[in-house]
């Protein structure tokens, strides 16, 4: 077993499952967090992640297969997607792929799933297909406000981590998203995004 990445919430290991490569995602206890709160969060997110990753396959979202869940240790063993995170791709490619990402997010929302952590690191390009990962913060929700929170987050990430290509990739994302959800919902959600931004600190000039 080899440590691949110390993520924000979990350690990611490369391991074996049934003689092929697999990923072990371990949500280890965090010393800084109150133990009661810590175990609640780790357990909830492990269940959420395993559930959502499996559910979304039924409507065609590429995501890793879940092989095994260990709730007492808050661990999931899942299929390895040996591609590259969109975050690390050349900028021209990120711009292009933003449209596909928008479509995937739209499809998730159509089926009442909010991802909850939409960053460019959570989309993996493998064999010309984009896989969606990291569903620990996902929620079953059809509330437009929740879907708008998803959009605001990816917008914030594009604006900060990919500032140079923000305009074009955001435009592409929106066009992909609109294609998936239709214009009526698109207008509603994007209006809500502006509303949430307006609520931000010092966002509106007085």
């Amino acid at each position, binding site marked *: 077993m080899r440590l691949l990445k*110390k*993520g*924000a*919430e979990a350690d990611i290991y490369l391991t074996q499952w049934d003689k092929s490569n697999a990923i072990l995602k371990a949500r280890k206890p*965090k*010393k*800084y*967090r*109150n133990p*009661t*709160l*810590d175990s*609640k*969060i780790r357990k909830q997110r492990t269940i959420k992640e395993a559930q959502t990753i499996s559910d979304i396959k039924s409507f065609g979202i590429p995501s890793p297969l879940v092989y095994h869940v260990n709730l007492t240790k808050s661990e999931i063993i899942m299929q390895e997607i040996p591609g590259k995170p969109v*975050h690390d791709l050349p900028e021209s490619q990120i711009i292009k792929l933003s449209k596909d990402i928008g479509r995937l997010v739209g499809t998730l929302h159509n089926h009442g799933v909010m991802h*909850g*952590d*939409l*960053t460019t*690191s959570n989309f993996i390009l493998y064999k010309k297909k984009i896989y969606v990962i990291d569903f620990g*913060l996902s929620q079953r929700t059809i509330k437009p406000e929740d879907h708008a*929170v998803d959009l*605001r*987050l990816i917008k*914030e*990430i594009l*604006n*900060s*981590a990919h*500032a*140079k290509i923000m305009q074009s990739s955001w435009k592409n994302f929106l066009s992909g998203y609109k294609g998936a959800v239709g214009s009526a919902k698109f207008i509603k959600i994007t209006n809500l995004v502006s509303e*949430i931004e307006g*609520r*931000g*600190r*010092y*966002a*509106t*000039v*007085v």
Partner: protein
Amino acid sequence: MLGLGIESTAHTFSCAVLEKNGKKGKILSDVRKIYRPPDGEGIHPREASRHHIENSSTVLSDCLHEAGIKIQDLDLVSYAAGPGLGPCLRVGAVVARSLASYYKIPIYPVNHAIGHIELGKLLTGAQNPLVLLVSGGHTMLLAFLNKQWRVFGETLDITLGQLLDQFGRSIGFASPCGKNIEDLAATSTNYVSLPYSVKGNDVSFSGLLSATKSVSSKSKPDACFSLQETAFAMISEAVERALSFTRKKELMVVGGVAANKRLSEMLQDVCKRHNAKFFVVPLKFAGDCGSQICWTGLLESQVKKGAPLENTFVTQSWRLDTVKIDY
């Protein structure tokens, strides 16, 4: 180079004199007067601005006296032009404009939040940090990219400082309540489950505030303890997410809430896990002060001439991610 900085965005009226030599800066004096609202009440902008007006001349002359300089020695004067409370901001701006026009000193309007960050960098020596700005006015995670501070995460509603103050006032403490809450929290170890709301790199505190108020009717210590544990865990998680996403190797904490020991302890643990160096601004300069404004003005003077007097406005809403930084 000698600069004078004037801070008056909220409860603090402060003047400071700094000397800049190349990249080095030295604080010659930093004098403050802080407006204290009555117990259980928040800052009243009008009352605070009156306090600032009454104290401005003493603070200014004490500050010059302590630094051992005369107004004529100053190379520039900078003031906090926003964000903040309008009536309070105007006091600092008026003092700055008066000095600038009478003594013909170049004047620099400065963003208050940038001031927190720049003084933090000067005092801690952090080179390229992820910045956590936690105060009454801000709760933001920032990293510098392409001449601007970019927001990687922030609160979607109230700030960490507001959360602590508003809860503290509801149980009768005087603002700022952080220290009182910290002390009372230390007397309990009973964690009561409270809403934990992390949305990606963003956090939301308003639900937590209401829920904590209802816990406090049963036990104030439990409420304080659980509030700190929950809110700081949320911040720590957002920091972890931003550290892992930006791959920064330094974390710098600035702003008034940086003084909280429990928060520092949790963030130190986060940094250990991510092999990042942990920097926290010295307690004395964590809160609002003139040094922040002065140092930022001195930095700006490297690339900019002073502002024409007719452009020396104050702006209540002025997001720091809209400020272009050329120095």
